[in-house]
């Protein structure tokens, strides 16, 4: 595309953007969706199996649910530490990121990365860099939902 300085920059930017879109490869959405479904579904199935197990062992439902989260978080953190989680997520995408495993991964990965800057100013300060927004907006939505429930129950 010949840069023509007599034309407004906007037109040229648009033409170039079209050119870039034409050349750039597109992700295979179908393959990504299938991977995400299979891995995300497997994580959910493991969670369900754990829940059934804990209930069978006699834990009350609330505690059993919390234990499921604890175990899944531990597995995700452990796999992150071993350097395996990112290899799984490369294929699974949102399938690995959206469940609680993604949250654990985001914190552990950040902690490992910040370790060289010390425990307080490194790990402590940067632990929530990626997970933080999830917490912030999770809490905001919970607050709004609570407000709606309070007003319209």
């Amino acid at each position, binding site marked *: *595309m*010949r*840069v023509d300085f007599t034309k407004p*920059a*906007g037109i*040229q*930017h648009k033409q*170039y*953007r079209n*050119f*870039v879109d034409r*050349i*750039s*490869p*597109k*992700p295979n959405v179908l393959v*990504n969706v299938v991977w995400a479904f299979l891995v995300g579904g497997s994580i959910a199935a493991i969670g369900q199996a754990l829940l059934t197990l804990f209930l069978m062992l006699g834990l009350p439902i609330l505690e059993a649910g919390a234990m499921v989260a604890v175990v899944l978080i531990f597995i995700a953190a452990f796999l*992150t*530490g071993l*350097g395996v*989680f*990112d290899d*799984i*997520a*490369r294929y*699974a*995408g949102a399938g*690995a*990121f959206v469940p609680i495993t*993604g949250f654990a*991964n*985001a914190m*552990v*990965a*950040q902690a*490992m*990365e910040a370790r*060289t800057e010390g425990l307080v100013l490194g790990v402590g300060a940067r632990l929530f860099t*990626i997970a933080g927004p999830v917490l912030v907006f999770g809490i905001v939505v919970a607050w709004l939902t609570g407000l709606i429930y309070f007003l319209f129950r």
Partner: protein
Amino acid sequence: MPAAKKQGQQTLVFSNPPVITASGTVVGTKEAAGPLGKTFDRVVDDPYHGEKSWERAERRFLEDAVQIALKKANLSSREIDFFLAGDLENQTEASALAARDLGIPYLGLYGACATIYEGIALGAVLIDGGFAERVVVAVSSHCCTAEKQFRYPTEQGVQRSLTQSWTVTGAGAVILAAQGSGPVVTHATIGKAIDMGQADPNNFGAAMAPAACDTIVRHLLDTGRGATDYDLVVTGDLGLIGRDLAEGLLQDHGFDLAERFTDCGVLIYDPQQQDTHAGGSGCACSAVVTGGYLLQQIQAGKLKRILGVGTGALLNADSPKQGETIPGIGHAVVIERR
């Protein structure tokens, strides 16, 4: 009155072309496993290079590259007038720390991934201007420091975009001298920061291609040369997508480089085998390919004259979040067998 050693708008012509007397290249295992694996001087298997952090490792890579180049040229660091270096860390810290240990008068550079070519151009200016007898130009990049700096933690589970490139882990150094044997630097064309409105930090190739094209076209117009005057026109790290874009842009300007046009980021990895997506990038990408493969090809007589164009995406970690588009830069240097 036009400057005595300047031709056209942006091109410098060296009356006593500085000689590239030696180069040193150090890479990691991924680069060594690529198609150019055998052309590098040293391969370091450990991404930490025996250090505690990636940042320290990158500094070691840089120092190693300089030491290898000095050894090849049979020089000590005292015989070097200036050390020109840059990298991608905050405030180019890897270069600063390497400069501290080397003890050579230091000029820190930042031209993103175009830094090695910016350095060669400036080093040649210092030598041709009579201000230096020998200059070392060196750059480094490390995939883990760059990911940390610009993207996510390395263990973070994210899918890389197909347009994204892989930062080369390694460092390259070249020694420029007023006298000696080796290929010479005859011209340099200093690029403009060109922004075609690209804002995707996962597609540097698209951000840099117009700048590379602009510099190549400007170089050919300034010198009155045509594409056939060069055996190879090689860009720094446009990658597969950026190379295609630049090729298209150059064709629109009436320059069909066809087989003579390639890119260091395309050469360094095998995208099918190594899952690097768009190709290689980073300061070290153009440095280790130029300092290794390209100089070897010139020395072997397979290439007589090349136009190397270092390419850089001039963003920082925050500018895309603030809605800025990404300016690209391209600096061209003519390297000729003598």
